[in-house]
């Protein structure tokens, strides 16, 4: 399989941009339009671009984690953010907020919704990449049909 040189050069520039932008969108979703879903789509499209320009095998190496692991960790984040509220004695999934004044005049206003959003971010990347890989690789090993297939 020959991959386009133009696409390879262009993706080398585009992918860091897309990944940084995806994190920006994720954090911006805190109090503005944006959020985990959009961020996840952007990050997912970066890996899809990489797979287009270098092949799925290379994209798997770059991703480091299997997409299923991303899905698992993402769902765990979402569940964790809900349980965090339960531990505090609030209703399930209640947003908890903390004002942090760090040295150097940095003011951070953090909420447990951010953990949920990071979970969404990871789940969306996992889904996009998993679907993409399964189309490109023609899926996991096909199990031979059971006996009596026509019945």
């Amino acid at each position, binding site marked *: 399989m020959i991959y386009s040189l133009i696409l390879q050069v262009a993706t080398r520039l585009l992918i860091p941009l897309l990944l940084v932008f995806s994190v920006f969108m994720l954090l911006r979703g805190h109090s503005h339009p944006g959020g985990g879903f959009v961020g996840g789509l952007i990050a997912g499209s970066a890996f899809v671009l990489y797979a287009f320009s270098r092949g799925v095998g290379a994209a798997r190496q770059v991703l480091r984690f299997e997409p299923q692991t991303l899905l698992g960790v993402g769902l765990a984040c979402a569940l964790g953010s809900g349980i965090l509220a339960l531990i505090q004695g609030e209703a*399930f999934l209640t947003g908890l907020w903390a004002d942090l004044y760090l040295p150097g005049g940095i003011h951070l206003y953090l909420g447990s919704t951010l953990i949920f959003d990071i979970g969404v971010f990871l789940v969306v990347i996992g889904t996009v990449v998993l679907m993409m890989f399964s189309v490109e690789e023609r899926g996991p090993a096909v199990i031979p049909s059971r*006996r009596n297939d026509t*019945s």
Partner: protein
Amino acid sequence: MDLLLILPLAIPLGTAVLTLLLRSVPGVQRLTSVLGAVALLGASGTLLWRVATDGIRAAQMGGWPAPFGITLVADPLSAGLLGMTAFVAVAVAVYALAGMDEARQRFGFHPLFHLLLMGVNGAFITGDMFNLYVWFEVLLIASFVLLVLGNERRQLDGAVKYVGINLVSSIIFLAAVGLLYGHTGTLNMADASGRIAELRGSGVEATLATLFIMAFGIKAALFPLFFWLPAAYHTPPAPVAAVFAGLLTKVGIYSLIRVFSLLFPDPTGYTRTVLLVIAAGTMVVGVMGAMVQRNVHRLLAFLVISAMGYILMGLGFFTTLGLVGAVFYILQDVPVKTTLFLIGGMMERDTGTARLGEMGGLYQYRPVLAAAFMVPAFSLAGFPPFPGFWGKLTLVQAGLEAEQFTIVAVALIVGLFTLLVVAQIWSRAFWRPATEDDVQASGSTSQRWALNGPIVALAVVLLAIGLYAQPLYGLAEQAAANLVDTQAYVDAVLGPSAGA
């Protein structure tokens, strides 16, 4: 804050996450899967017990008060279904250890199975229209992947039909939810039941009712929207088919009962005739389809459809007794269908064929399986002392009380035909003398325990329900009382002041 209402959702999600992350260590993954199902049974069982003794419980998600936030509500119907779901979940989780091939277990059966359970539980427990849509989609996506897991050609073929029609049904439901919101300004089911009174008799009400019947009718495989079910349910391996047959159609019919009792509690209108005609069609088509099938899995798939007709008939009467019958029938039908499909899987495994005409000797060589088959099969046919008998008896009584003699006659005749179908399986696969290649020895002792154990446990519980039906019947009576007079439900969700 009511932890008990969260657990039926949090436990399957937690188990799904753990089994997904532990997929490289199969032994631990499978243990987690079974333990997760057992924990779910503990949580759902406790919830059922508390609801049966203390009445309806509700919880508001994220601290947003109803009707603005999402409410979780457990009334006797929801809690009973949650309990039954958890019960069959344990049985299927154990059966899958030996009844599911290695490759499918490795490629995600366990996480998807628990995700499916979360979707089913969520649909049973939510009190919000849009949230119900979301849970439908959760259980749909899990069921889609479970259905094609393994990529056999006929699985893909069945899945195309299943996926296509179910997506259409979801979007019809979504459109109905949008219309309901536009005309009542609320998505909370209890709140909407109060506000929809203004629309009584208008065209909007008829449109909404039709859209809901269409959307849930497809999910519940009602006549004439059932074609996808026998096209798909026989293609996946037995544990997947068993959990589909036991739970997925029940979610559809449960939603229909919930929505009609809250939004369209109209006992005399023409909707009743429509529901009864659909019920009769569903019963007849199901049993007629089953009679001509030569493949045991396809035959069982048609019997799933037939049972839906009985439940809908109870809703169609919309009397207290009719609803008692419907609720009792739906509760006992969950383990009945699961057991039948698990046994169907065993029949294919032991004889090496799914064709009834080529089976034989099961009674001689697999007496335990044969004894276990008797219970769900004759329960389905409505024989005393099996639980199906009590369900049908109540439904027939309700029909006579409501003076709907035609549908009662149809139900009784369909019962006879069901007996014929069941007797056909019995006389072919079990009673016919074996030829030398009929029954194959398969699996180690521990495998046979994992396969037979859940089937026997399900059969024993079903027999116990049949012999001592009062607890479940009492629960069905409680549930029916709450469905006819929804004030308790509304009060539990919105607070007692809203009713005044």
